[in-house]
């Protein structure tokens, strides 16, 4: 209770309560995440349950148009799947991929950054050259090429089953250098501090100093970058899926839904594309706004 009270009285919460944009974005993110996580229980239909699909329900417009059916509030696609349920399940997959990918990026980036910053010397030089080379290329391009190469290496039989892992790997590997660079910078500062010296003197091993003493002190800036990168990772996944090299059609993410809907734009069934697209845009916008606020709130100099 005491800790909770202290948290509620902190600057962090104060700045949150004073910032309507942050509060609204937080609300939207919570809403989207809840809808995604609870999709199997609260979605009106199950788009994966082939038995429940009825072709008679196909291409119904959303409820506010004439011919709309209230049981399919945002309309249906060409196979009679409910667009709203599709979005809820799709967001679930999009978020899953983005979170796993950023988790992977964080793990690699933090490890490399800690080692480079703590060990220094030629290890540092080599690791940072790799970072430099990769940062020359836009992340989406790296993700696209890694995705392509990994698919080419895998035997065709394994491709379907591993597609989620492949895309997580591709997006994760495309975003680690930023984390590595930030962590390295802070680690180099922390390394010179007295507490690290003290830990060394009493004979704690280097890996343990890095993991339990330095790591907690370098996490702040990394969290901000991670939030902003989460939004970008959602976009990466959507882009790859839209290009048709992402997730298989059996696991439609938001990007896949938009790609499917694209074929129906010219016949007037706009809702199949526009609703997933709007969900994606609102979600990423909220994550970005929240990340911006977090950056300002955690940086006392900007206040």
């Amino acid at each position, binding site marked *: 209770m005491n800790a909770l009270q202290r948290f509620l009285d902190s600057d962090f919460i104060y700045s949150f309560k004073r910032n309507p944009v942050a509060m609204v974005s937080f609300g939207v993110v919570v809403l989207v995440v809840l809808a995604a996580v609870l999709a199997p229980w609260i979605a009106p239909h199950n788009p994966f349950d082939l038995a429940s699909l009825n072709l008679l329900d196909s291409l119904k417009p959303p409820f506010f148009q004439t011919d709309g059916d209230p049981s399919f509030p945002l309309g249906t696609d060409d196979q009679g799947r409910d667009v709203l349920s599709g979005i809820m399940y799709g967001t679930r997959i999009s978020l899953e991929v983005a979170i796993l990918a950023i988790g992977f990026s964080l793990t690699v980036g933090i490890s490399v950054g800690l080692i480079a910053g703590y060990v220094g010397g030629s290890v540092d030089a080599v690791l940072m050259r790799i970072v430099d080379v990769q940062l020359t290329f836009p992340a*989406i391009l790296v993700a*696209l090429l890694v995705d392509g190469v990994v698919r*080419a290496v895998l035997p065709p039989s394994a491709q379907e089953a591993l597609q989620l892992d492949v895309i997580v790997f591709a997006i994760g590997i495309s975003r680690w250098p930023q984390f590595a660079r930030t962590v390295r910078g802070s680690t180099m500062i922390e390394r010179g501090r007295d507490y690290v010296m003290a830990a060394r003197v009493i004979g704690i091993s280097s890996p343990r100093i890095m993991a339990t003493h330095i790591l907690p002190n370098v996490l702040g800036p990394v969290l901000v970058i991670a939030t902003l990168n989460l939004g970008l990772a959602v976009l990466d996944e959507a*882009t790859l899926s*839209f290009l048709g090299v992402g997730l298989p059609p059996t696991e439609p993410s938001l990007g896949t839904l*938009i790609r499917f809907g694209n074929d129906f*734009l010219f016949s007037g069934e706009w809702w199949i594309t526009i609703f997933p697209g709007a969900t994606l*845009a609102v979600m990423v916008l909220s994550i970005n706004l929240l990340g911006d606020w977090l950056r300002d709130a955690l940086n006392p100099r900007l206040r």
Partner: protein
Amino acid sequence: MIAFIIARLLQAIPVLLVVGFISFAMFQFVGDPLVALLGQNFTAEEADAMRHNLGMDQPFLVQYVNFLGRVLHGDFGISYRLAKPVGELLAERLPATAELALCAAILSLLVGVPLGVLTGIKRNALISRVMMMLSLVGVSLPTFLIGVLLILLFAVQLGVLPSYGRGDVVHFAHWSTGLLTGTGRVALILPAVTLGLFQMTLILRLVRSEMLEVMRSDHIKFARARGLTPRAINFHHALSNTLVPVITIVGLQLGMLIAFSIVTETVFQWPGMGLLLVQSIGVADIPVMSAYLLLIAVVFVTINLVVDLLYFAVDPRLRGGGK
């Protein structure tokens, strides 16, 4: 100056060698070139002869050097999917991508810089606030969604602009351009706007924040005190001081334009290198992928180099020895 250029060139070489190595490794270890060239049925002798012909029985490093030699002669191998030399395929599609990226860059500069100056000077005006809101939305909208929305509005609802392809093109030797025909120019509008929009919002926000910074500085106050016209102050004294970061970002973003042209080309079925890459990834056409990787590395290293040199030209402070 010359020492600086040489140092930068020497820095670029390891990057290219590393990327070349990755590209070579893809070529060498992903998929079996013998299967691709000889088909599924071949005898051991045929395979040995082919290995010898391709130089695959030589030591690894020799093969790498041979590979670099071939690449320098423009020989990137044969596309598995289209059974044509990759160099030829890329050369065919380069003009389309170059034209698209260049038009998008020019568009984003022509719109982004003036709007950035405007929102920077009149920071509290209603129009500035609206622009800032719109630019935030622009940053969050993925490129492909912008393309889809533009197609929905201008091609489907209004029916005024074409939604795919490049229109008619005119050929000059190895270059093809759509800028000289009516259908070509019309076909360029939607893809260029789609690709340029994100850059435009970035440039707008950057110029705005730089303008806010510069307008507070002493030399602007002095220019005001001298009684110069607002126009001269805003566009000459202030804007020229914002140019260094703008050049960096625009230069580096040119790389982003090429990366995102992959997406734009797919949305609009624009026959450029990006569309070729996406189609090749779909069927694991390794020679095309590794050639694209190499080509893009050269482009990016060149861009970074030019940006660094432009710094030198724009900011006199960097010229004094730099040590």
